């Protein structure tokens, strides 16, 4: 065979090889794009390591975050940048209605207090940690009269807790009253961190201290809280879709008994008027020390990091300087 013929044959062999490799690569890509596009596939059943039974903490937390839609990226106008997935949840608002329960007979565990039909509105943020809970009592539904005023606004931010006579009270002369409630800081912060997003954020932040396990087919995440809530342990139960369905807190410190909470979450959906692909629970039930506290049906949520701010009024800052955060129940609830 001449040199020219040898070159021609070599070229043909190279082309065939190239085509084969291209085809294989294309098939590989096809496999990649077709395999499991659901959050469940990203975590869920895959959250078990090759060993079979031992749950992989990172995969479990990833699956929980993906189920809620927390980890996101976007290539709109990204050009040569491909950023990783980041936790996009910071600020949100939730509107609902339901029942609030006051303190029952001698505050006995398991004994429901007087019930009030309420309209519920919560505005919250995780950076900085802050929450403004607004409840409007419509009527009493129990056998005892409703406690408290018809309309309450309970706010917390970092190390400050206060009640507002109106949203933003105490920030400008003549605009309402801000009443410091330093004793409520921990309890109100806990409300923030036992929401599904708070659970996932805090569990990720706890790093190696977060443990995952499997009980009766359900995945359990256990981790300690930190900062103001040090001493509180959170135990969260996830369903087969990796949604947080139950959160329980416990503490070994008897002085922190008011921080023993329980919350149930169900009916997850994107409740936004402007869709965000973030899921929020449609039904929220909270208990404190075994006593029913809240039962809320969510009507709407704005999860698109809306404009929400929680500036601390000067009189609250002054009060905080004189009164360190105490571990007491929130008597203003």
């Amino acid at each position: 065979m001449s040199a020219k013929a040898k070159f021609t044959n070599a070229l043909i062999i190279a082309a065939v090889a190239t085509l084969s490799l291209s085809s294989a690569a294309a098939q590989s890509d096809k496999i990649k794009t077709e395999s499991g596009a659901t959050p469940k596939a990203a975590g869920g059943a895959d959250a078990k390591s090759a060993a079979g039974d031992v749950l992989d903490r990172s995969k479990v937390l990833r699956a929980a975050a993906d189920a809620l839609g927390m980890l996101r990226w976007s290539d709109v106008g990204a050009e040569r940048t491909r950023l990783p997935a980041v936790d996009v949840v910071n600020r949100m608002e939730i509107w609902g209605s339901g029942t609030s329960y006051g303190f029952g007979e001698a505050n006995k565990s398991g004994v429901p207090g007087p019930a009030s039909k309420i309209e519920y509105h919560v505005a919250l943020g995780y950076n900085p940690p802050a929450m403004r809970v607004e409840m409007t009592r419509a009527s009493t539904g129990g056998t005892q009269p409703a406690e408290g005023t018809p309309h309450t606004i309970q706010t917390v931010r970092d190390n400050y807790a206060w009640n507002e006579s109106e949203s933003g009270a105490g920030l400008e002369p003549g605009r309402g009253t801000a009443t410091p409630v330093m004793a409520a800081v921990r309890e109100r912060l806990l409300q923030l961190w036992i929401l599904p997003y708070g659970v996932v954020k805090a569990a990720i932040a706890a790093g190696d201290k977060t443990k995952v396990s499997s009980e009766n087919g359900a995945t359990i995440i256990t981790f300690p809280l930190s900062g103001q809530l040090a001493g509180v342990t959170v135990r969260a139960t996830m369903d087969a879709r990796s949604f947080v369905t139950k959160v329980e807190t416990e503490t070994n410190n008897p002085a922190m008994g008011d921080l023993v909470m329980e919350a149930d979450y169900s009916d997850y959906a994107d409740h936004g008027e402007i869709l965000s692909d973030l899921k929020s629970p449609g039904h929220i039930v909270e208990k404190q020390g075994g006593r029913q506290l809240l039962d809320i049906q969510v009507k709407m949520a704005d999860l698109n990091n809306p404009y929400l701010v929680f500036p601390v009024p000067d009189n609250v800052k002054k009060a905080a300087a004189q009164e360190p955060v105490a571990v007491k129940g929130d008597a203003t609830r």
Partner: protein
Amino acid sequence: MNYFASNRIIAVIAALCLLPGAVMAQESPRVLRTTNSPPTPSGPTPRTPAGHPDLSGVWDGLRDNLLGPPNQMANAGIVVDGVTSTRDLFSGAQIATFPRNTNHVQNYEEDERAATLLRRMGSNRPIYKPEYWAMVKELDANANEEDPANNCMPAGVPRVGIPSYIGQFPTYVIFIYPGLGGLIATQTSYRMIPLDGRKHTALQDLDGTYNGEAIAHWDGDTLVVDSWGFNTSTWFEQVGGYFHSENMHVIERFHRDGNTLTWTATVEDPDVLLEPWTMTPRVQLLNPDPKAVLPESLPCSERDLAHTVTKEHH
């Protein structure tokens, strides 16, 4: 057709089959940045005969800072340092970061919804007076109809961001902001800013404009541009519904370090804000080509808004 003739045809086909691979091999591998960290300065900072830093140049090394979420996240103070690390510059908070879920290919709607969240997740926000909180939220939620920069209106100062071109002269500076489209369909705009020690015109003698009346001075090696005399037809940030009054006062600071330009803007507006607000510093990179020129701006033509059927927006 003889053996060699047929083989020549096959060889030509074979060569064509190999061509894409060869072309791909010649292109540098497509390196996709996984961070949006501010660029590290390099090179000397040139100076004018008067001894001031020379800010002249084409400042578009990171492309249009109105464009995609990576730049907008950086503008909002969200710095992605790598595939497992993100932080909020303003608060210092660490933000959970994971590799992309490669099993999930996002469609356009998912990309846009994610971008809406990513652009707003930063902690550094102006604090409005409480009576305006609901208004700001509503403006942002209804930005498709409410954003004054839609329909090719000027972005105004300081929303317009870092100029893509600065021409520095002893007694004035020229800023040019090409209308590159991007997040909002804005016009090209320019500013000619005196640097001769003059004072502001009294506010009551000014007719409000989109960019206001600007004067500049040097504060050490930092160029300070002081503007007032605005109309109320702009928002002062790219997203968020951040409206302002005609009494807005904006102080911009430009600092060059080698091939980087750092810009911050402080907005004072006691009519609507509880306190002055300073944006997270933004850093732009000098175009590495010393012969770089600004491209011609695309004509601004807004054709989408009339067809929107939901409130989803940038």
